[in-house]
């Protein structure tokens, strides 16, 4: 009786299961369900066509319902063919939301889905990797011209939008959610940090106490992973190219070094650079026997699985999601084929984290609709960013301290006798 089921024991329909999953998200998303819902119900979303292109599971579905409840015409597509969930799609369709995605797709069907979303002429896009924005530019330049704004989730998408801006192709304003503090300080650090550890341990059934975990890259994602690993009793190592970040890692209590010095110790290696080939052919000699390699960064090739395959004498499936490559007499285990381990091997970010990230996206979209902005790449105003954190804190019953006049002494601006 652990499965979601009706009280009489009959199996539920896909739509019922999807609704139950979305309801679980709602009850754990106080910011979206309260502050954001109220703010966007001012009528400014009425009749606006908004395309949502994000991993299509329950959290994204809840975002779509918030927009639809505020009067928008919502078009939902997935941002990855493998992460679209059937019950959630069914639940959205049954409440009249246009969904152009289907589960169990491949790259080809996903391409068709994005083209279909483009055909529906969205005015606004909540995009991931600028995937839909790019396709509209290439395939429907006529509809691309009619776009009024894009709110982009990722660093990669932001880079693409900036490249378009540099070439003078951006005819509308865009916002980069990743630059909001309520996104990267939580989603990248706590969300990816926690769920990467969950996926690592669940997929391997190994212990973390005393494990030697090397984190490559000390951006927000790397910081989160290293912090959780250390807190759980691992011996942590960090490799970083930026001297300031490396110094920060050192002061956070991690052992910092080049990959040549760090890898030979590591029993688990997590790539978190956002670039490609963070672990490439030139590093294979440093890996010890029985090491577990995982990727927590954007590129599927942060661990150069192709080069690993070329260098190895054999490859086998050791366990669900775990491939073992034989390099000489060393066994090298790779999780999820090198794809983002917390998404491919886990349930994605915690609900409470996406409550913040999607609040940034929704308020960003509302801001694009209500504020005249120059074409180009913008970030959401600090006041909006702050208001999201304030709403989250309020849901916990946390009170902020206020700054008082007598605390201003140190600022030395308008006081006598300095």
């Amino acid at each position, binding site marked *: 009786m652990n499965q*979601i089921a009706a009280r009489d024991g009959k199996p539920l329909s896909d739509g019922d299961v999807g609704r139950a999953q979305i309801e679980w998200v709602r009850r754990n998303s106080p910011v979206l369900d309260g502050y954001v819902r109220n703010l966007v119900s001012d009528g400014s979303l009425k009749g606006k066509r908004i395309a949502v292109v994000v991993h299509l599971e329950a959290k994204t579905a809840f975002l779509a319902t918030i927009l639809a409840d505020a009067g928008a015409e919502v078009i939902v597509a997935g941002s990855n063919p493998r992460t679209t969930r059937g019950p959630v799609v069914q639940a959205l369709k049954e409440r009249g939301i246009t969904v152009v995605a289907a589960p169990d797709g491949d790259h080809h069907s996903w391409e068709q889905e994005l083209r279909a979303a483009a055909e529906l002429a969205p005015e606004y896009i909540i995009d991931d990797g600028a995937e839909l924005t790019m396709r509209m530019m290439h395939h429907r330049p006529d509809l691309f011209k009619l776009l009024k704004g894009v709110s982009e989730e990722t660093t990669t998408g932001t880079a693409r939008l900036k490249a378009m801006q540099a070439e003078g192709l951006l005819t509308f304003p865009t916002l980069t959610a990743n630059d909001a503090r309520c996104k990267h300080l939580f989603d990248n650090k*706590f969300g990816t940090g926690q769920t990467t*550890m969950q996926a690592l341990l669940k997929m391997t059934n190994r212990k973390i106490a005393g494990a*030697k975990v090397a984190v490559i890259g000390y951006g927000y994602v790397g910081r989160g992973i290293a912090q959780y690993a250390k807190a*759980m009793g691992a011996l942590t190592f960090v490799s970083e190219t930026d001297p300031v970040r490396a110094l920060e890692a050192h002061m956070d209590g991690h052992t910092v070094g080049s990959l040549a010095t760090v890898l030979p110790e590591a029993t688990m290696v997590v790539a978190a650079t956002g670039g490609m080939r963070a672990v490439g052919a030139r590093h294979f000699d440093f890996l010890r026997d029985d090491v577990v390699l995982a990727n927590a960064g954007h590129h599927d090739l942060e661990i150069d699985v192709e080069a690993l395959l070329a260098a190895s004498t054999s490859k086998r499936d050791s366990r669900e999601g775990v491939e073992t490559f034989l390099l000489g007499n060393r066994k090298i285990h790779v999780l999820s084929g090198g794809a983002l381990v917390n998404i491919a091997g886990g349930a994605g970010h915690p*609900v409470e984290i996406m409550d913040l990230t999607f609040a940034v996206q929704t308020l960003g979209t509302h801001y694009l609709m209500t504020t005249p902005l120059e074409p180009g790449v913008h970030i959401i105003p600090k006041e909006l960013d702050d208001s999201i954190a304030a709403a989250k804190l309020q849901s916990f019953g946390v009170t902020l301290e206020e700054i008082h006049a007598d605390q201003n002494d140190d600022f030395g601006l308008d006081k006598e006798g300095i």
Partner: protein
Amino acid sequence: MMDSTQTDKMLAEEGARNIEWAKQGMPVLKVIEERLKNSGLLAGVHVGVGLVLEPKTANLALALKNAGASVSVYCQGSSTTQSVVEALKGEGLKVFAEEGCDADRDLQLAREYLQTKLDIIIDDGASVIRLAHKEFPELLESMLGAAEETTSGVRPLRMMHEAGQLRIPVISVNDAETKYLFDNVYGTGQSCVMAMLDITNLQLSGRYVVVVGYGWVGRGVAKYAAAMGARVIVTEIDPIKALQAVHDGYRVQSLAEAAPIAEVVFSATGIRGAVPPAILELLPDGAILCTAGGGPYELPMAALQALGTEKIVRQSVAEYLMPSGKTVLVLGEGDCINCSDAEGNPIEIMDLSLSLQALAVEQIITEAHKWQPGVYPISTKSEQEVARIRLEHEGASLEPLTTELTAAIRSW
């Protein structure tokens, strides 16, 4: 359609793959298997392995077989992984376990298992030992002894001994430091906290988490919950353990005091009724209850079920609507969540516990003929052997014990 032989073969392959993966994380067991094999001690000895049947315990059964023993395996249907059953059968072991079978079938299998005339029993919860005493006392005559894995099995064995009813010597593997200091703390702590996160897709960051009981499991749960960002509150009846919790940096309160802010409650006591029904209405709306290490008997399941409002809101998450209008959530039907909804303890941790079991078998063969029926500890030598091998594998080295140090330690 595949016929059942093909299905069994595919299951056996899956089981073998998972057993092989576990084996890679169990270097201690491998060293001990080699040593026992070379000693020839296990030749002709019939050992029964009656633990939760999954890839890690399968490695113990295989290690004993490789060391020369003849091995039979028993497990209840609710704790059996069928792919592992098929894989072990493929290795020539006698397996008395069927995934998902009912209690009647469990009993029938346990009887058949006992009737294979075991020399040594490795037991979990003392269930097979008790059955043998009840139904097959004649089989106990020729039995060398037994080894028990859990706290809940050692307790009734001691009771039986006090009552003069225990007929064989039993080694309490559970009481070994190399077991409870690691298995209960790091194994159950990590796996229960991670299972809670996996089931719910939530965070613990900033949440008030109440850990009921600060025994070895409670300490582990508190440690990992705090590591995930929780604000941990410990409840404890023992003043010394409670004082330890204070010094470990946790708030310590009575359950009634902590309940109003308890967003997540882990019961880690192994004691019936540790979370009484009276607590339910004190909890905040949507509080999550679960069990670490023990079973549903720790939680007020009867009171919750009597409400008649159970609703499964997510896989392994049951919601109960209370008369006040507040809701309470229970994970995994109140069962120990690392077993009901995850793969149990991590592999390397079970390497320690199961290696101790192998050494308990050795100790029973070499020493038990000198023993009266009773409950015995595993030898310190065995405990240290396990720790030393694991240390070596972890890349750690010990400080050498010099004659000067020895003299200083012994001085007075």
